[in-house]
């Protein structure tokens, strides 16, 4: 049996809600099939008040083994680095968290907030929030660069705003089966298996992208990259291959731009969200590993080669021909 404790910091609860959307296995079955004993979850568990404190104290006293700690939500450090923005039982929440991390076999930061600070670090982090091990792309989160949990791995980051339920369940699987090694994580400690892809991969607008047949306003079928702000070519995630909510949708399938919510620099570096910033005619958000000169050359050529069918459909909200 593996003991799991799930905590929420400065959180919207959205990663829990997303976790509950898990399909195969469902969220509740995932505990069964992974042999997980849920010690406590703030949204799901029956225990409240002192009963929760008893669970916490038993972990900290070493009487209850803590195999996996999951944090969702950022860590409130303010005001003035006192941690008083979140007092949990008259003690800054971040102190509880740091103690739990000392006991944890494995620590997972679920969602961009717990991983990197996320949305609440907007506006130059005026609210003094951080992730568990990172703040944005630096290892200056609560636990610092050198932290490793008892099993020798750093905090495993499973970002996304929210995180995809598969990413959560599959990371738990890899961790508990002992499959996850340091070389399976990228430089931001995200499992490469999900985050070495781009949201662009599998996007149904890819043919439009190839020929630079672009939508000029939302609800049209063309590519959202040239004018409408899409960051799918920069966003490290497999969203458009994996799809969401019973494999029914994704951001670009819903007609809105990817905003690269899995990025350590979310939410401020992605602005403007709804239009594409350009230098001359060239978007500044070029695909991650395509050299600029080549991009410009290929784009010019492909625009000239664009079939009429694509040109028409790109600026229509329904299929024309």
């Amino acid at each position: 049996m593996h003991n799991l404790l799930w905590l929420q910091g400065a959180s919207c609860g959205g990663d829990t809600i997303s976790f509950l959307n898990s399909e195969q296995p469902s969220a509740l079955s995932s505990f069964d099939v992974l042999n997980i004993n849920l010690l406590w979850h703030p949204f799901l568990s029956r225990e409240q008040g002192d009963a929760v404190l008893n669970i916490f104290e038993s972990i900290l006293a070493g009487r209850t083994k803590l195999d996996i700690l999951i944090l969702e939500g950022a860590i409130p450090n303010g005001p003035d680095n006192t941690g008083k923005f979140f007092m949990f039982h008259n003690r800054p929440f971040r102190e509880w968290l740091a103690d739990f991390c000392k006991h944890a076999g494995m620590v997972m930061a679920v969602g961009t907030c717990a991983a990197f600070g996320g949305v609440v670090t907007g506006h130059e982090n005026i609210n003094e929030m951080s992730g568990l091990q990172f703040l944005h792309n630096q290892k200056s989160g609560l636990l610092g660069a050198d932290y490793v949990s008892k099993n020798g791995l750093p905090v495993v980051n499973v970002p996304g705003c929210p995180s995809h339920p598969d990413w959560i369940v599959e990371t738990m699987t890899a961790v508990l089966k002992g499959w996850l090694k340091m070389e399976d994580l990228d430089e931001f400690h995200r499992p490469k298996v999900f985050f070495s892809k781009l949201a662009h991969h599998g996007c149904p607008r890819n043919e439009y992208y190839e020929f630079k047949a672009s939508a000029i306003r939302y609800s049209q079928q063309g590519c959202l990259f040239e004018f409408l702000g899409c960051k799918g070519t920069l966003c490290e995630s497999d969203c458009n291959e994996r799809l969401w909510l019973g494999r029914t949708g994704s951001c670009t399938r819903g007609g809105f731009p990817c905003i690269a919510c899995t990025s350590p620099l979310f939410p401020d570096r992605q602005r403007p969200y709804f239009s594409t910033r350009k230098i001359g005619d060239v978007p500044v958000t070029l695909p991650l590993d395509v050299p600029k000169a080549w991009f410009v050359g290929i784009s010019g050529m492909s625009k000239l080669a664009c079939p009429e069918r694509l040109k028409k459909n790109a600026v229509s909200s329904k299929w024309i021909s």
Partner: protein
Amino acid sequence: MPTLIAIDPFNRIEGDLRIEIEVEENTVHSAKSSGIMFRGFERIMSGRSPLDALVITPRICGICSGSHGVAAAKALAVAQGAEMPDNGFYMKNLILGIEVVMSHLSHFYLLFAPDLTNKRYSNLSTYDTVKHRFTAMSGSSVVLALKARQSALEIMGLVGGKWPNSLAIHPSGTTSTMNLSTLTRAIGILKEFHDFLEKRFLGCPLNEWLDIDSFDKLLKWKGNNTHSDSDLGLFLTMCLDAGLDRIGKGPNRYISYGAYDLPNGTTWLPAGYFDGRMHPFDQALIKEHIGSSFFRDAVEARHPLDGVTTPLADKSGAYSWAKAPRYDGKTIEVGPLARMIIADDPLLTDMMRQMDSSVMTRMFARLREMCRLTNEMSGWLEKINPSEPFYVSPSSRFSSNGIGLTEAARGSLGHWMKISSNLIDNYQVVTPSAWNMSPRDENGQPGPVEQALAGIHVADVNDPVEVNHIIRSFDPCMSCTVH
């Protein structure tokens, strides 16, 4: 001497809550409701492009991100003078509707019902069945409801792309469109959810239950074995046996901002203020107080458009990170009960006459709304016309301030946006649970839940299940509250 009892954390709600009650001889003298965290969304908003509100504000809440999206889009529509094509209205209503129905379903099965398995009720005839069905995370009905939720949310993928945090709703329509395939699929998914409600939750056709227009008819309905054996029938029996119709009286003043805008300029659920009589609702009468809240300001209360959010963690006498919204200086209950009363729902109006506001009426209002909304969504889905536009180009100029009012699952949600030179100057959010879970204002007037707890009898001070029922009947969302 009264004893001070703290329930901290008060969880199995959304977000982080601390409840403190003062008890003497098993009677609660007074209560304090504390939002124990500051998140600072309003400060993140200033200086941003107005459209950023569509990205940032839904992330206030994981369970009602779509409602924040709707409120932000409505505020922006005012500021931009944007208009929406007909399809946009129905798509927006579907996204909001699914979110609210799923929230009510999760609230009942995941958050509220587990308290019914408390050992306090072991002498009731329904106890074994209740325990079998409603035990937290493993009850037979809980598991089925979660499965039904996950399947029904596939509609959200079709109309909203992803969820939580869809960006499909814009001031001038939806970025998402529907076609023959997605519409057909969505109709099928909704039908499947109807079937779940009928087979498991109601034990009868949805329409038959929606036709019940009085408490007497509800009791008669329960007389049928299939009905009484349904989850709702079981809950009805349990409510009456456990006395949930006699605890949890709210302030009996209610607001709804109105929601589910329709192309003809009306809303499916009407706006209003009800204090025994119906009045028009006027947002100018809202003020947020900070007397007991960890905020600093030169004045104690402001209208949200002029609201100020400056945290002060060491403020003496303060006990919550929630501000205290008041309407014309008064405490207000918002949520499904308010909406059903203001919409003049015959069953709830009659239940209010017969048993006043209580845990039971509040819960039945929520479940009633869940069924009514499920029914209404079929109609909206039928009205979508794939040949017509879903979105039109809005103006890129923001020429006035924006106010966006809507109804989230938990009640009235408002976004107030002050704009200068095409940038956000001030952004203030007043959430449903800020109304219901608010601390005292500077006049010492307790918030609605604090009032609802004062004076109640608790049989066992070490396990005050009455307190659990009352608080959870309001379905608090503290993530929203301490935005």
